[in-house]
């Protein structure tokens, strides 16, 4: 069965610093991979997705993610974090009609 692991429950970075959120998945074939962001009291918003092709995917709000098949990873990155990026981030893996989410990483941004 497919699964998603986000090893970091909580990450704190300073505003302007770079960010990398880790995501590892388990799936037999090439999965569809997603990153969502959830701000307090809000629903989830899609940041980016990967289906095939170029392994470096650009998303909204300056985020990007890189698919590494050999490491079964799909890490999310941003070169310079803004205070408004503070939120919960979820990695998800999908196949056919099934979508599995990781437990999330909470991002705190220090001024």
């Amino acid at each position, binding site marked *: 069965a497919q699964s998603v692991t986000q090893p970091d429950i909580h990450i704190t970075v300073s505003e302007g610093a770079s960010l990398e959120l880790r995501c590892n998945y388990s799936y037999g074939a090439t999965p*569809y991979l997603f990153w969502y962001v959830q701000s307090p009291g809000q*629903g*989830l*918003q*899609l940041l980016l997705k990967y289906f095939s092709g170029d392994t470096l995917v650009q998303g909204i709000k300056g985020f990007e993610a890189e698919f590494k098949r050999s490491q079964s990873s799909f890490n999310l990155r941003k070169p310079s974090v803004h205070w408004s990026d503070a939120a919960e981030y979820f990695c998800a893996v999908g*196949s056919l*009609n*099934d979508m599995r989410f990781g*437990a*999330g990483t909470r991002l705190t941004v220090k001024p």
Partner: protein
Amino acid sequence: EAGVAQSPRYKIIEKRQSVAFWCNPISGHATLYWYQQILGQGPKLLIQFQNNGVVDDSQLPKDRFSAERLKGVDSTLKIQPAKLEDSAVYLCASSPAEGGARDTQYFGPGTRLTVL
């Protein structure tokens, strides 16, 4: 374009009571999803509708949970009777096409349920 609407936003009930949540998807979206998000966890799919038919309800606790999507538009999710472990945020999402993992899902703000 209006987003996915959910009501109520918050609900507090006692165990063994019944509760219902309502979802209005984005206009024209064929597929509707209900997720349960327990504190500290990622969302878990409960049920997926394509138009007004059920595509997947394998993780829906059918002894107490039920859902329907009338006329392929609005949907309601009901819990009867509620248990303490049902305390969670219930998220509704919709997608424009026929479902499937490639389809982008648009989420509503959720309903936070507290069972005392």
